[in-house]
């Protein structure tokens, strides 16, 4: 068990929705990871589809680069519809 890799588990709760991260588990291989994920995270019909992803394969942004990494979006309020003035009486815009 000590050397079993960590898998991140994603569940699609019903058709039409995306898979959402629910937690993680250890398993020796992908097949066991899927079975364990079923037993651990869908005991009450929480899902219609499961993904398991080796945690080591996930590439993540780091929190300390966070502010700088996301700040290109900070000064672009014009990307939101509320930025624009709409004359009185104009509808469906």
């Amino acid at each position: 068990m000590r050397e079993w890799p960590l898998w991140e588990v994603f569940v699609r709760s019903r058709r039409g929705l995306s898979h959402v991260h629910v937690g993680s588990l250890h398993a020796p291989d992908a097949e066991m990871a899927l079975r364990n994920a079923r037993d651990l995270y869908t005991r009450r019909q929480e899902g219609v589809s499961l993904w398991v992803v080796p945690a080591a394969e996930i590439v993540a942004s780091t929190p300390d680069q966070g502010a700088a990494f996301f700040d290109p979006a900070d000064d672009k309020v014009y990307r939101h519809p509320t930025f624009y003035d709409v004359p009185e009486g104009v509808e469906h815009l």
Partner: protein
Amino acid sequence: MASVYGNDFGARAETSSDEPQSFLDLLAGEGRVEPRDEMPDAYRRTLVRQIAQHAHSEIIGMQPEGNWISRAPSLRRKAILMAKVQDEAGHGLYLYAAAETLGVDRADLLDQLHDGRQKYSSIFNYPTLTWADVGAIGWLVDGAAIVNQVPLCRCSYGPYARAMVRVCKEESFHQRQGFEILHTLSHGTPAQRAMAQDAVDRYWWPSLMMFGPPDDDSPNSAQSMAWGIKRFSNDDLRQRFVDMTVPQAEALGLTLPDPEIRWNEERGHYDFGEVDFTELFEVIKGHGPCNAQRMSHRVRAHEDGAWAREAASAYAQKQAQKQAEKQLVRTEGAA
């Protein structure tokens, strides 16, 4: 160091002097700390210990009830009890996964449980002598656990809080099935009724102890509250539990073994007698009725499972090797 569900208490309080500004800002804004954020070492250590001990409590907690699976009085009760015990295993796993986000290894945490360096809730060191005990555990022990765990859904550490949301959703059936068992017994034959009363008599005080020592004797609480791990004091949670439970006992037609329980109009709460915390500390020290039995059973189960873990590893290795060979044949064929 000892712990109850979602609680951390002991002689040595962890404090920290050097807290990163980003961490303080998060706490001040009621934000959540996530695994890769900067956090004080003492905060990390406290969380690892608390979450691990919480996880250990869940899996050790399978034993007293597991004891009755093969003797459940009907197929319905047996199916329910199996589902409940399986849930507790799941709670343990959610929590070990949450602890691992802090950079520790589940296998190491289990080693620490097995060699006694880490504790589990002392409530599971009491025996389940009759079927009614299964009812009392569901109603009182899971009930107390719920009161402790609900505020942890808002804990400052994201993965712990999220694990608690899952756990709390599952707990409510645990409490109801226990209540139902006791309700059935207390409305049954005189012998069944007596069995239900006896179980409540034995489990009432230990359940109150699950909230930990009184506030003035709870050195870690202030720091835990400052860090947003703990939201309410031990005594507040204990009072909440008593207020919830007294009317339920009336509905069961059973008495709680405390002559001092009475409604206090002025406080708007039930008064209750003093908890004997010397018993709690004795059980924590290892002198409870079942400490040795729980640990030896746990260690044996772990050792007996070694072959299954080894077989799974060997199978995975073999499959990976086969896959690699196939890959090799394909690349050579293409060349």
